[in-house]
């Protein structure tokens, strides 16, 4: 039975059309009408502006992303090139951030190092969202045996301390960029699955979904056209916060010498280099630059995630 309240909200014409021709066009009109009204899209947009800090944070993340992408085009020395005439050089016009104890240009190493953090962070979360998110969408909406078993599986995997698992697998499988990305991508699947599932579940009994179901919409249509658009804000927000978490794990691995092998720069292994071999006494700049960029990057991602969470009014209890 169609829900009368919903149909009244959408206007009589749509109901009449939908009653006579349960085809896709009418369904579209009806469903979009139902969808936008109770969601209160206007209220969301009318909320207070995101603020200067938010845009500064977006700017910093954007800057790092762009520099990492166009690193090859920039007039930078090779990050692995050792200039023996400029060991531990202070910041100057030739080396804007100075050089390390092997004479390698720090600006170049920090920019190339950003590639590792960003690729691992964003690609592994993309893997997690693609697999965990899709499973979460389906199991949250459909319920049943699939949902119960997937949820129990995610519970078991989340009970496992991720860093130990990641270290153990990296140890046995190898330390290339793509392996580490894949391992971390798999590691975040249960987390993102739970978040998306909880969100999908909360929409699965909303009136607009029931209306679509009553109109005879197929399951895949309901999942991808009705539920998915509503789940996206939650997925993006938590995905972003997970990116920060993954970047921290990759940085920790690199610090322990378990991420991409040297001499490939990664912020974690530059920090480790700066903190060992007495470099803290002789040249604290080696450690300083990646520490500052990493702090600002994590701060920015957390800030963007936090603002988006407030904007979309997502409760933290969802996790």
């Amino acid at each position: 039975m169609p829900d009368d309240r919903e149909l009244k909200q959408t206007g009589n014409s749509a109901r009449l059309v939908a009653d006579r021709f349960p085809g896709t066009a009418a369904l579209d009109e009806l469903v979009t009408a139902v969808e936008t009204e109770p969601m209160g899209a206007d209220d969301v947009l009318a909320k207070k502006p995101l603020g200067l800090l938010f845009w500064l944070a977006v700017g910093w993340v954007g800057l790092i992303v762009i520099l990492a992408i166009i690193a090859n085009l920039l007039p930078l020395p090779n990050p692995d090139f050792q200039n023996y005439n400029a060991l531990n050089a202070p910041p100057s016009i030739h080396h804007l951030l100075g050089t390390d104890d092997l004479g390698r240009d720090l600006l170049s190493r920090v920019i190339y190092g950003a590639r590792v953090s960003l690729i691992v962070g964003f690609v592994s979360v993309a893997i997690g969202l693609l697999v965990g998110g899709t499973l979460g969408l389906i199991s949250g909406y459909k319920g049943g045996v699939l949902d119960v078993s997937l949820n129990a599986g995610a519970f078991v995997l989340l009970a496992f301390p991720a860093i130990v698992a990641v270290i153990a697998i990296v140890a046995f499988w190898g330390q290339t960029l793509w392996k580490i990305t894949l391992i971390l991508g798999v590691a975040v699947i249960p987390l993102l699955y739970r978040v998306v599932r909880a969100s999908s579940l909360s929409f699965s009994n909303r009136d607009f979904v029931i209306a679509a179901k009553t109109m005879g919409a197929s399951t895949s249509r309901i999942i991808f056209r009705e539920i998915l658009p509503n789940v996206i804000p939650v997925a993006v927000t938590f995905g972003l916060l997970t990116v920060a978490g993954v970047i921290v794990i990759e940085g920790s691995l690199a610090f322990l010498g378990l991420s991409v092998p040297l001499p490939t720069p990664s912020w974690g292994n530059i920090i480790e280099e700066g903190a060992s071999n007495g470099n803290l006494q002789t040249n604290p700049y080696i450690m300083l630059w990646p520490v500052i960029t990493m702090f600002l990057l994590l701060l920015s991602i957390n800030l963007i995630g936090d603002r988006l969470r407030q904007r979309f009014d997502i409760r933290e209890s969802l996790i």
Partner: protein
Amino acid sequence: MVKYFFRRLIQLAVVAFIISVLIFLLVHLLPGNPATVILGPNDTAHNQAVLFKQLGLNKPLFQQYLTWLGSVFHGNFGQSYLNHESVTHIIATGWPIDLELIIISQVVAFAVAIPLALFTSRRPNRPIDNVSTTGTFGLLALPPFVIAPVMVAVFAVSLHWFPATGYVPFTQAPATNLHDMILPSLAITAGSIAVYYRLFRSDLISTLQEDFITMARSKGMSTRWIMWRHAFRPSSFSLLAAAGVNIGALIGGLFIVEYLFAINGLGYSLVLAVQQRDYLVVQGISLVIAIVYVLLQFLIDFIFTMVDPRVTRE
């Protein structure tokens, strides 16, 4: 209550079983032959085959798992391929160090976060509240591998307040031990302070709007009495839950500070073993850490149901 307890206990057993299988399979299914690792790649194929048989690697996987699990239950995790030190010994000497680091860092975290939250939540959105809330947000962006080297640079290298590396057992020299442990503990405290403070503050703010607080106020009770006796307990549930989850985050931090300060805890041994591909050490330590972690989650969950009876009903 009892039913809930047993349901959680069964879950615990299942999780522990799966963890043991996964960790066992790690060593056996991933590429790399332990015999080659022990003898080196240049030894003869015959020697490798003999050792392969000696290690029992030719038996069915299922049988190997049972043998391994049996010896683990007898406290025998095997021995290091490299220096033949027993893994049990590495674990036995390592865990008190990790425990000490965790205890110090958590005591500091609670000692900072709880009074600060009690103080700022009384008047939210005042300057002091905004400063500490923003400050703790900044702490969230300072994982141990970022803040620890900075702390060493400032407090050990420049100011010489603390040593940069070193560890003396507590039983030998308590004062030196505590002095050595301050920097590493503080380096892993930052994140905990932020998490505890933010959670406790927001819970306190919502508790303070309840009717029973207004009631207590109208009866003329002092603010201190209201904060500690009336608002504290109902606001502390999620703090407790967060403490449980946070231990997972601490494990990663432990690895970092033990590595940086060259403290011989489980994390340091694990990282060294991974770098040297010392399989049995990796297997033993990760199994112990994972099982202790799961047990702790279970314990905290159980304490949680005692403090907050509503949990069992869900």
